[in-house]
């Protein structure tokens, strides 16, 4: 395994207006790791990924991806990165064929090459019959599969995935989990965010928990378990984010509902 980190983040800080979203993130990611990036809503997860993808600037700190500082304005490093955004909403008027070949061609693949690949990948995930249908007619799961294909089609070294498994049925989840594990075995790096703790617990070999713009836990599931003496990732999550009011809140919620 390569000992040089693939992604290095040093003292990353970011503020939106007066609100400090990231308060100094330090992180080194090595190839072959599957990293689950978890944290409560609004903790700064997607902001981190967006900064890594060069979608947000005016951050403080240093980021190196594949040995290159990303603040130098070059976009070439993105060739080796697959990014799965939350939605394809804006491209919904296109068909999968149009969308995927467009994405592939932007990465420098030939139309024929990307077309063949896209068709086969769609077939493997069981959605080949909608290859020429508009994306707007897809179900949530089909869109998710399309997003997964579009982020992988150029065979990237590093993958940033945002909730890769949401909306997928149990069988597809198994396929995608297996794909991710196999990619990691091939030395690719996978960095994904998720809210489904069971999944994170099972497929990540490293878990990073972020809360209020800071990393509060970093390590394998076993390490986290040992440190916090809790049985499940969900409990660890609650403990580390200092959240223990779930019962109270649920009670108040029910009371308010019944009060009408």
């Amino acid at each position: 395994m390569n000992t040089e980190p693939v992604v290095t983040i040093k003292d990353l800080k970011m503020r939106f207006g007066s609100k400090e979203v990231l308060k100094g993130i330090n992180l080194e990611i090595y190839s072959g790791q599957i990293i689950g990036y978890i944290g409560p809503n609004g903790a700064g997860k997607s902001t981190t990924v967006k900064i890594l993808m060069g979608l947000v600037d005016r951050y403080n700190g240093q980021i190196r991806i594949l040995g290159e500082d990303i603040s130098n304005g070059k976009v070439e490093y993105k060739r080796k990165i697959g990014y799965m955004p939350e939605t394809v909403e804006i491209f919904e008027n296109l068909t999968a064929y149009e969308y995927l070949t467009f994405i592939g061609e932007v990465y420098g693949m030939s139309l024929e090459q990307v077309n063949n690949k896209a068709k086969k990948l769609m077939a493997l995930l069981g959605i080949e019959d909608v290859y020429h249908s508009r994306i707007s007619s897809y179900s949530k799961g089909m869109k998710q599969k399309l997003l997964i294909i579009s982020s992988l089609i150029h065979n990237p070294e590093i993958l940033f995935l945002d909730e890769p498994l949401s909306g997928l049925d149990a069988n597809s989840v198994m396929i995608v989990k297996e794909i991710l594990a196999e990619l990691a075995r091939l030395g690719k790096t996978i960095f994904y965010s998720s809210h489904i703790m069971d999944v994170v617990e099972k497929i990540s070999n490293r878990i990073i928990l972020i809360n209020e713009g800071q990393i509060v836990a970093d390590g394998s599931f076993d390490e986290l378990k040992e440190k916090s003496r809790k049985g499940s990732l969900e409990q660890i999550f609650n403990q580390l984010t200092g959240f223990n009011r779930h019962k109270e809140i649920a009670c108040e919620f029910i009371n308010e509902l019944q009060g009408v």
Partner: protein
Amino acid sequence: MDFEGLRFFGFFYQVMGIDYGVMRKILQIKLLMDQRRAPSVLINSKHKDEENTFYKSLITYGLMGAFFAIIMLLPLPMFLKMNLIIGMLIFMITMTMVSDFSALLLDTRDKEILLAKPIKPQTVNAAKITRILINFLTITFVMAGPSLIVGLFKYGPLFLGIYFLDLLLISGLILFLTSLLYFLMLLFFDGDKLKDIINYMQIILSFVMMIGYQFTGHIMSYIDYNIGFVFKWWMYLLPSAWFAAPFSLILENRAENHFLYLSLIGVIVPMLLLIIYFGAVIKYFEKNLYKLDKVTAKKRRTVEKRAILYQKLISPFIPNNLENVFCRFT
């Protein structure tokens, strides 16, 4: 869609540090999506999801253009006639821009997908501007086309030349005005309000279209063909007058001072505005665009209070709760 003509400009794009090949691909995809988008002139028609709604809307614009061409045939004074046509052109194009092209001008969401690819931001921006220009010029020339041709036959090639240049200047002016309008709105309102205002524009547009159709048949009988033309100072304030003046000045050889001044204003003002626009405004504009995507969590207490008050006022008339709700939201 084919745009071989762009190949000629390829060189300019390269000089500006833009990846022409990639820009072309982005443009291709975007224009494909434009063809499938239902434009607001056709928003009431049923074939929303069909292909080529864009071409269908072009036919509508073409019909409007034909109406302008009819005005061209009327025996009115040149200045008045051109004023009318250009005034209507400016109005129609601005409205179409505001209602239909908001999607193009304010499209920031594609950045998340496009900029995550190895594409330079300049290339994405160039594709965006080119897309707007293609759409915009297509509509402008479809609307102005019929009157252009009629004018060519009636007044000769010189007319065509003036009209063509005028149209380019008018396009610049409209582009600036629309952007300025958006810029101001973004400065004061959040994204939700802006979307509301775009909706209002769409309503006004369809309203004007409706009334316009009613009038088309009648207007010929109302026109008094003997109106003389008297110049008034406030005409300097009418953009349509700036662009109508060169026709009188050159075609009719009326070298009167006010025609000369008006023509000069018509050339200088749009140029100046475009320079200001590309030089300064566009940067602030982009900065404010992020507001569109942000959900503002303002306290809307007055809205709640007003709704409750309204309900109390109306409940004596509509005691049924369900009907009451529908009444409030219509």
